[in-house]
């Protein structure tokens, strides 16, 4: 059980970061009308910052259920890629339950932990990290919903940008090394701004349309050279 306790230790800083971001997500969930229990349930079942943000906005906008399915797929589609990559990192002899659990808890951070092990990842190392960090995520969301109404307005306003800080930490660093990504990020900012200001499209619809359009544009105009499968 050494690997479980090592994973648990790695899970502590991950969990603290999750807690702060989940709190900010809770403020968005409260605006969409979710109760603390509903926020807790969502975060316990979904474990996805961008995906939950998109979904809470969709709930606030009272979109049809089919559109909720669509926004969930689009805002989380990066996990398809990670899931493919991770599938190569699980010992083919490992029990199926490990594939289900590691898939259920597939986030950017847990993915990074699993993918760096050779030749196969140890599921129990991941379970250790998840044991600490996943409750932080779910409780942080519930607390954000409760406290969002109690804390001084100024603090809530400041905390509401935590989620965007997490997004920036993910998509800005590759801008340095990849010109296509830099161009696509700039294009995304510009078109997202224009659509939100000059059309009546909802935020979740804008996210779907632009993700599909700009990523397709990128794939056509900036085809990547062969690269390792896990980047």
């Amino acid at each position, binding site marked *: 059980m050494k690997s479980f306790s090592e994973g648990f230790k790695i899970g502590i*800083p991950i969990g603290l*970061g999750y807690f702060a*971001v989940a709190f900010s997500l809770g403020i968005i969930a409260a605006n969409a*009308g979710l109760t603390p229990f*509903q926020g807790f349930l*969502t975060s316990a079942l979904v474990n996805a910052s961008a995906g939950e943000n998109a979904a809470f906005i*969709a709930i606030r906008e*009272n979109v049809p*259920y089919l559109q*909720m399915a669509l926004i*969930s*797929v689009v*805002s*989380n589609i990066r*996990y398809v*890629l*990670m*899931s493919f990559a991770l*599938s*190569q990192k*699980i010992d083919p002899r490992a029990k199926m339950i490990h594939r*289900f659990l*590691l*898939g259920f808890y597939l986030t950017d951070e847990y993915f990074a932990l699993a993918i760096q092990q050779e030749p196969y990842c140890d599921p129990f190392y991941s379970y250790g990290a998840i044991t600490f960090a996943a409750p932080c995520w779910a409780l942080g969301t519930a607390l954000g919903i409760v406290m969002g109404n109690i804390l001084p*307005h*100024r603090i809530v*306003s*400041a905390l*509401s*940008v*935590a989620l*965007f*800080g*997490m997004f*920036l*930490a*993910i*998509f*800005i660093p590759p801008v340095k090394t990849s010109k296509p*990504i830099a161009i*696509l*990020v700039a294009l*995304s*900012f510009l078109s*997202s*701004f224009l659509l*939100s*200001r000059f059309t009546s499209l909802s*935020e979740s619809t804008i*996210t779907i349309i*632009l*993700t599909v359009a*700009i*990523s397709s544009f*990128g794939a*056509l105009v*900036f*085809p*990547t050279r062969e690269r390792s*499968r896990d980047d």
Partner: protein
Amino acid sequence: MTRNIYVYIAVMALSVFAIRVLPLTLVRQPIKNRFIRDFLYYVPYVTLSVMTFPAIIDATDSPIAGAIALLLGSYAAYKEAGLFKVTVVCCLTVLILEVFL
């Protein structure tokens, strides 16, 4: 019509579970199609960018505070400050600026 939040949560949870688990359990070969691979490669950066702007300037009381948090947060991320520090930079920027704005 008003829709049920628990149904929303169920739809979301099932969709996300399918996305994460199906490739891991059913498909165990590399993706061959070049366009799909490149499309999937660019998706995370595009989705996160679209969701960040202009939402960050609408999230704060003062749009200017949100815009400056975006600039300073981007700078910190560019310098590889890491998830936690970038988040703190953004929050502190808004907290301090909104005292004056």
